[in-house]
């Protein structure tokens, strides 16, 4: 993760876009890391939730290509723990939406095995396809 980098106009535009989409002021994050400590899915992620927040602050668009944003299940554990009152789950959603609005789906119905389709309840399918496809 870049730590001492020059913030370009493109970086600033990315930060503004995520602030606008998420409704959060990501620059308020103080990098305490409580979101990462509490996240039940952090072990699966390539960037921790705190790193995600930092990369957005720096306008680093690589975070939109991370695995992290798709692993986040919007469980709101970070939301209730953040001492700054921020909601990282909304930031992850904004980053997913950046991809989904370019018609880049994360999952494909055709890749789900037939035997799974027979047992999966619709509550699972509807939520997965609403979160992970555009």
């Amino acid at each position, binding site marked *: 993760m870049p730590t001492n980098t020059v913030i370009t106009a493109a970086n600033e535009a990315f930060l503004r876009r995520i602030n606008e989409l998420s409704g959060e002021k990501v620059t308020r994050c103080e990098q305490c890391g409580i979101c990462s400590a509490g996240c039940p899915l952090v072990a699966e992620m390539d960037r921790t939730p705190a790193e995600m927040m930092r990369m957005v602050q720096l306008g680093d668009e690589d975070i939109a290509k991370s695995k992290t944003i798709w692993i986040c299940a919007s469980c709101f554990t970070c939301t209730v723990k953040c001492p700054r009152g921020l909601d990282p789950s909304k930031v992850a959603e904004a980053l997913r939406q950046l991809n989904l609005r370019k018609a880049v789906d994360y999952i494909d119905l055709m890749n789900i095995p037939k035997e799974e389709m027979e047992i999966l309840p619709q*509550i*699972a399918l509807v939520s997965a396809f609403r979160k992970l496809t555009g």
Partner: protein
Amino acid sequence: MKIPYYPGCSLKTSAKNLEVSALAAAEKLGIEMVEMPRWNCCGTVFSLTSDDLMHHVASVRNLVRVQEMSENGSVDTTNKMVTLCSMCFNTMKSAAKRVRENAEDLVKINSFMDTEPDYNGNVQVLHLLEIIRDMGFDKVSAKVTRPLEGLKIAPYYGCMLIRPKEIGIDDPEDPTIGAQLFKALGAEIVDNPFKKVCCGAYHTVHNKDTVIELAHDILTHAQEEGGEAISTSCPLCAFNLDNRQKEIKEKYLKFKEMPVFYFSQLMTLAFGLGEDACMFEANYVDPRPLLKSKNLL
């Protein structure tokens, strides 16, 4: 109390045991849940982006049904509705909050729903558990004919019932509403920190391995504390914690199966409403051997 009831898709299919038992238990407590006409899927998840209103239309349309029921006298509550599924509860309450607090969003959604009456923005979305809590758990105890003596229940809350703070019905860090209910039913409560850990939710569709790990952690922590069964109010948690035990057993050979109850099944059992009202046969891990061993069946 006669209140509009929103079932949602699971309650009519994979979670019939939640609906059947909850309707019977609520009736015993004097709560008549009147299914709303022409309800539609709530969408299961609430869109978290600031500019996305389209994904809230489905939920708001259901709120219009509640408004109509309040107006036409088919219920005796005003602008209140009850849900059973944690995800429906969270999605509908979040949508109701958004349009209540953002007048402009409400106008946009109302003009989009051209053929529907305008939504007034006033509906309060409730979960059955909070209605019961507000009545008082002593009212629950008074209806118990078969106390769940000796049954060690680890209440599991998951995410959508308790988070985020402004939506949840209990302390998001240390929820106790289930423990209080089951105590009133005579059960022993087993507390453990995994009661509020996400089960992986919809990852069960495309990332099953993660769900298996989380569900294994949630179940085994409850077992290590002495829990004999866990409880839930969410059909997706139920699928991940109950049905996925098949995969957990294949991966963890030492894992012992554990029944997963809907909170309402424990109520119908303790109220002595009969096995038809409990619908234990719809649970993946059959809870009846455990209940028989405790002389509860």
